[in-house]
């Protein structure tokens, strides 16, 4: 049980380092305005509206634009980000918060990236000839979160485009930097924390009758329902003698027992599991049976009567599953 507690605090330490670095980057404030490669120009506008299929003449036809509310040609607002794109060989400046956060998360093993959402706000239209510059600030870093892609951190930045001192547009941009699943991951990280494989496990149905069991696992306790002197697993809402006045409590199992029966699962794939894996129905020393995966064992070595100890498979903040290891 202490192993689970240690594992969680170790994982928290890694997370704390990332959070501290994020606070420092956010505290550094906005990056220096980074000027666009070219001024807003008609050639780029013509290409862009053609590719997008935007036939609005205020972007391309001087006469129509002159007759419009704009009075002259303007650039499509949605092109704002285009002006400060860095081209094929460009790099974000050293003080760019997204660059700094990306490098940090790469080093921590969250090497893959996917853009999740962005929101843009336009304060006014840009006109050909204007030269914009962009400045970004780190708004937030949240994680680690378990996602379908893998464990990762959501990184949110806010970019502001300026012409001179005037803010003309803003964008909130969020990415997920995640640790890609490793098919051959043996299930143990270097610090001894057990991590489940990438696909999420099926989740239990939690009710008032069994919440204590699942809460206990989160705290590294294998809790067995007790009605007076009788232990019961799986738990339920009634005692063996049918006394409607009785209230259950629980005991925390010592976590030692023996294999009552087992199987080696080979096929088909099971979410969150690496094949093959051993499932053991364990008779606890307290006398009840509990099912869980038996880890770190050669399937050929498993036999009925094998002495095992409880361990805890932490899936995420909400779910920890009971599991077993061979007792030496």
């Amino acid at each position, binding site marked *: 049980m202490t192993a689970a507690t240690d594992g969680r605090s170790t994982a928290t330490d890694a997370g704390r380092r990332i959070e501290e670095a994020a606070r420092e980057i956010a505290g550094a404030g906005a990056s220096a305005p980074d000027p666009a490669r070219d001024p807003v120009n008609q050639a780029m506008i013509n290409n862009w509206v053609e590719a997008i299929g935007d036939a609005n003449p205020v972007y391309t036809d001087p006469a129509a634009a002159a007759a419009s509310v704009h009075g002259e040609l303007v650039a499509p607002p949605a092109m704002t980000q285009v002006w400060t794109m860095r081209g094929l060989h460009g790099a974000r400046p050293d003080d760019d918060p997204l660059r700094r956060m990306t490098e940090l998360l790469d080093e921590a093993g969250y090497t893959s990236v996917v853009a999740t959402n962005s929101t843009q706000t336009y304060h006014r239209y840009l006109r050909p000839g204007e030269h914009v510059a962009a400045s970004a600030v780190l708004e937030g870093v949240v994680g680690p979160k378990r996602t379908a892609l893998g464990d990762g951190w959501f990184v949110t930045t806010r970019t502001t485009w300026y012409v001179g001192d005037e803010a003309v547009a803003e964008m909130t941009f969020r990415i997920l930097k995640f640790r890609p699943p490793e098919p051959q991951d043996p299930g143990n990280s270097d610090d001894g924390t057990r991590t489940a494989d990438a696909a999420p*496990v099926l989740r*239990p*149905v939690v009710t008032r009758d*069994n919440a204590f069991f699942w809460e206990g696992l989160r705290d590294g306790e294998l809790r067995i329902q007790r009605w007076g002197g009788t232990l019961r697993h799986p738990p339920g809402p009634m005692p063996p003698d049918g006394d409607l006045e009785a209230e259950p409590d629980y005991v925390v199992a010592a976590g030692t027992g023996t294999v*009552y029966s087992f199987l*080696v699962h080979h096929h088909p794939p099971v979410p969150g599991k690496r094949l093959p894996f051993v499932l053991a*129905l364990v008779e606890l020393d307290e006398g009840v049976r509990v099912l869980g995966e038996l880890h770190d064992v050669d399937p050929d070595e498993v036999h009925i009567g094998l002495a095992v100890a409880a361990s805890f498979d932490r899936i995420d903040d909400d779910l920890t*599953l*009971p599991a077993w290891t061979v007792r030496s």
Partner: protein
Amino acid sequence: MTGGIGGEAAIAGIGATEFSKDSGRTELRLATECVSAALADAGLSASDVDGLVTFTMDGNAEIALARELGIPELTFFSRIHYGGGAAAATVQQAAMAVATGMADVVVAYRAFNERSGSRFGQVSSSVAQQANTSGVDNGYHYPAGLATPAATVAMVAQRYLHDYGASSEDFGRIAVTARARAATNPHAWFHGKPITLADHQASRWVAEPLHLLDCCQESDGGVALVVTSAERARDLRRPPAVIAGAAQGSGPDQYVMTSYYRDDLAGLPEMGVVGRQLWRQSGRTTSDVDVAVLYDHFTPYVLMQLEELGFCGRGEAKDFVADGRLDLDGQLPLNPHGGQLGEAYIHGMNGIAEAVRQLRGTAANQVAGAETALVTAGTGVPTSGLVLTVP
């Protein structure tokens, strides 16, 4: 209690689609085809039907089937829970409805695209996480990785091997017998494809100690059974299969496929509950059974059924099944159609149809002079069974 169905009702018609891996049509279409075939077999029409029964798991509502078939009115409709455990119980429900006058002609049906559609052998999150007590029960098993029917059976099979000194070869003999029967049944998917015990042993692990060939196939298809009073059945086209016994059963500390918290893991007490009722209702015993159609989704549970039903003592099935006792000319001919291992997996309903054919004397692999047939439904779950006899 001495009650029971007491031969008041009979199966008067049977019908089926072809058994395939990809039917190419909807489950509702399969249902209408097999029900139509069963009615034609009985010499009845849709307008004669006033009751329909199926599995909770069946995707075809009784009213949808009634619409398609032109059944004008239904006075009785019912569904049975617990997967394949429902099979014989659909006939029990139909028989009770007929015996009590709630309906005159009740059709029990099961039709699905179990192979080309939703496969039971795969992990199903919707099953695991249903918002009811079964979902709560599954929480102690599915998240840990016990998430397929084969795995749930493997846990029990391992303990059975340990407690009684049985071996994988003993399981294999059930598979070899089934495939031998299927090999000579033109309607079986594995027609012409027998296996040897060596094939069984060489087949890959699915959930150790279960090999691939310990697990039944997955199938598309439908089967329907027409139930009416024994009296009316006598005047219909076909010789009736009289329902001499029909029973359901669940055992102590019962779960669906995961009754792992009982004192004795290596048994199927729910089938014992069914068996005791069947013998009592029908006035028959094991020695009266001319042909046994035992639910065979996984081989270990066939051995355990033989024990629970009283054909042999606990742990003795491994010896009972040796020496050809289950062959067509043996002491207890087993699953002459090839079972679900060999013919098709239609959730046990094809086995009931086979029992009817055996009593009519029209089976592909006919047991000579069969007068009494035993049929069981899904195992590892609350289940059911029938004793059928010639008139």
